[in-house]
């Protein structure tokens, strides 16, 4: 149809506009530190797309963010704000690593799924508390999940530094310091990287790129979440409760149950956030486990307008930015902070642009609707009375 085509053009135009705007602001910052924005952008692009390793690195970096974005987006769909993805993935990773190092002698096809389940269970457990408090006691989930994040850090520290500190690091007494980590996760629970797989297609990915199957799991999960939300009865309940809990209850949807279930699913997904790093890269849980994915997940989800498939794109964007940041820092000697600033500016300009775009489409839809209503209404009774005065 004609308008579809026009919409597409508009969509592309807006997205480009947003990126151009972000680049413009970025240029100001770059010029401020006395560099030439053109060459900086050029080398950033060259670094990210012109190297065989960078693509893999981008996908690897975006993997946790896909899960984070999905977890947050799902909770938003039901009208809850899960700031707690952060704590949930910490506990998930903790649970996964305990199962990962302690269950010896299992074949990988049992051990690995068990570890992943443990991760999900950990995340779910950490989501359960705020969810129950919300449903039973009306405690505001924003407050409780923030608090649960801090508690998670402490719990993880207790487990890693006190309970399960890996004593097998044989240091000469008195010299140096052991790593503050749990025992290493057994091979049988490690997630294989995708080297062999991409090798089939003749792509040679350097060994040090840790891109692993969690990336694929993330994409499949995004599709699953998309289907859950848009194609299943439960998804319909999620959306209905999220948009109007009163009306939902009136038609017999038990909003509390929906809140609880959705929050638990969100927690379970959050439990997966850390596993790509844990099982595909680092190989052990330590006090230095990457932090902040939960918070970035909020930005990812909202950038994607809580759309599960959009989450993948938004996560990739962040992966690209982060990889680019490393390149700029190491090659162009641009402080990392400039890239952090760019990240903020890009989020802002993209949301502004997509907001403008959304509004444009909304009016378009309304217009079409009104037009069709008018035509369908006016063919019924044409005779009408004449002016009576």
């Amino acid at each position: 149809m004609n308008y579809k085509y026009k919409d597409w053009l508009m969509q592309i135009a807006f997205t480009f506009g947003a990126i151009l705007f972000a680049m413009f602001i970025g240029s100001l910052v770059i010029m401020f530190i006395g560099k030439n924005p053109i060459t900086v952008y050029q080398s950033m692009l060259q670094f990210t797309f012109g190297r065989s390793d960078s693509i893999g690195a981008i996908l690897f970096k975006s993997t946790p963010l896909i899960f984070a974005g999905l977890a947050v987006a799902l909770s938003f769909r039901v009208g809850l704000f899960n700031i707690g993805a952060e704590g949930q993935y910490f506990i998930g990773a903790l649970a996964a690593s305990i199962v990962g190092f302690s269950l010896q002698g299992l074949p990988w096809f049992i051990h690995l799924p068990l570890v992943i389940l443990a991760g999900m269970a950990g995340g779910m457990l950490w989501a359960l508390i705020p969810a129950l408090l919300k449903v039973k006691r009306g405690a505001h989930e924003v407050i409780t999940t923030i608090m649960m994040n801090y508690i998670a850090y402490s719990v993880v520290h207790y487990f890693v530094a006190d309970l399960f500190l890996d004593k097998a690091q044989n240091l000469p007494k008195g010299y140096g310091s052991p790593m503050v980590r749990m025992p290493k996760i057994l091979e049988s629970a490690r997630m294989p990287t995708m080297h062999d797989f991409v090798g089939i297609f003749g792509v040679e990915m350097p060994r040090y790129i840790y891109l692993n199957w969690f990336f694929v799991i993330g994409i499949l999960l995004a599709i699953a979440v998309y289907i859950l939300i848009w194609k299943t009865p439960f998804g319909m309940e999620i959306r209905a409760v999220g948009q109007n809990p009163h009306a939902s209850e009136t038609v017999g949807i038990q909003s509390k149950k929906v809140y609880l279930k959705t929050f638990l699913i969100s927690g379970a997904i959050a439990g997966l956030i850390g596993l790509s790093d844990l099982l595909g890269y680092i190989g052990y849980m330590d006090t230095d486990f990457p932090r902040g994915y939960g918070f970035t997940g909020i930005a990812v989800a909202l950038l994607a307008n809580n759309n599960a498939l959009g989450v993948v794109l938004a996560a990739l964007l962040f992966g690209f930015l982060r990889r680019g940041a490393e390149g700029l820092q190491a090659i162009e000697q641009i402080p990392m902070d400039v890239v952090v600033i760019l990240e903020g500016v890009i989020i802002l300009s993209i949301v502004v642009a997509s907001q403008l775009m959304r509004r444009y489409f909304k009016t378009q839809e309304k217009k079409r609707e009104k037009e069709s209503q008018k035509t369908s209404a006016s063919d019924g009774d044409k005779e009408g009375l004449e002016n009576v005065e």
Partner: protein
Amino acid sequence: GSKDDAKQDAPAPAPTGEEPLKIGLVFDVGGRGDLSFNDMAYAGLERAKLEYGDKIEIEYLEPAGSGDNREELMRLLAQQGYDLIFGVGFMFTEHIDKLSKEFPDVKFGLIDGYIPDLTADSNVVSLLFTEHEGSFLVGAAAALKSENNSIGFIGGMQIPLIQKFEAGYMAGAYYVNPDIKIQSDYIGTTGDAFRDPVKGRELALSQYQRGADIIYHAAGASGTGLFEAAVQTGNLAIGVDADQSLTVSEAQRSHVLTSMMKRVDVAVYNTIVDLVEGNFEGGYHMFGLAEEGVGYAVNDFNREMMADIVDELEVIKGKIIDGEIVVPVDMEDLAEFKASLGN
């Protein structure tokens, strides 16, 4: 800043016609400006640059706030042909282990971390310190100086590295005065614990208010809160890693009894010198009391304060070097050590 200066010098080819050696350094989270650990590493780098000028080219990087890209940053340096790359902190252990195999031609310096089975031929050198010994001395100093018979310790996170500081400090204090009261506490449970001066100050105040008159910290930038509290309550504090008397504010200076020096700067500097002179050797470099790798600081600001105890500290130092005193490295050892004092 100095970073740009360094860069500007670099492109000019060395007059000898030789390529300058490229030295890289990746900081621990927190990075430059913590006035202790990271800054010491930087000081070593800077000193080398100052002395070798055109012969070397330096670059330092700071990992993302979450710290998850340490390995990537180091790899990028390695790929760009850096000759020697430092990882500041034991968190780099695993990464350097991997990278040293990936890049056999690049040399790595690992501070605080221990990789087993290194030899002189390895391309990694572990730079290790006996923080507990240095801490023992400042613990003794604190016990000697305390008027209330009560001192304190503030650590960032409770991890083996910091507990080494704690155990050594307590042992030193007990050694001088077995009956001394020691309060000990930690700031937090994440890396943020090393950059929370607000809690640092409140924790210090709470220890001072409960009787301590000297507090030693091993808490990175959080320690600045300790100095503030020392001024407020009119008590003494002991710095860590660097000679902190030199970096605190004027008002705080008179409240810094001494600092436990951990000469990361020396370690970094020496390693660079070795490389430049062609003497680089892999394996383990131990920086203990004997090597002046750790120790207590005496400077223009605290000389008077320390005058009456320096002799005694030197005696203790000698005993440790001689092996007469074996300083505990963790809490278990400390309990034994304390028990042995009782006899």
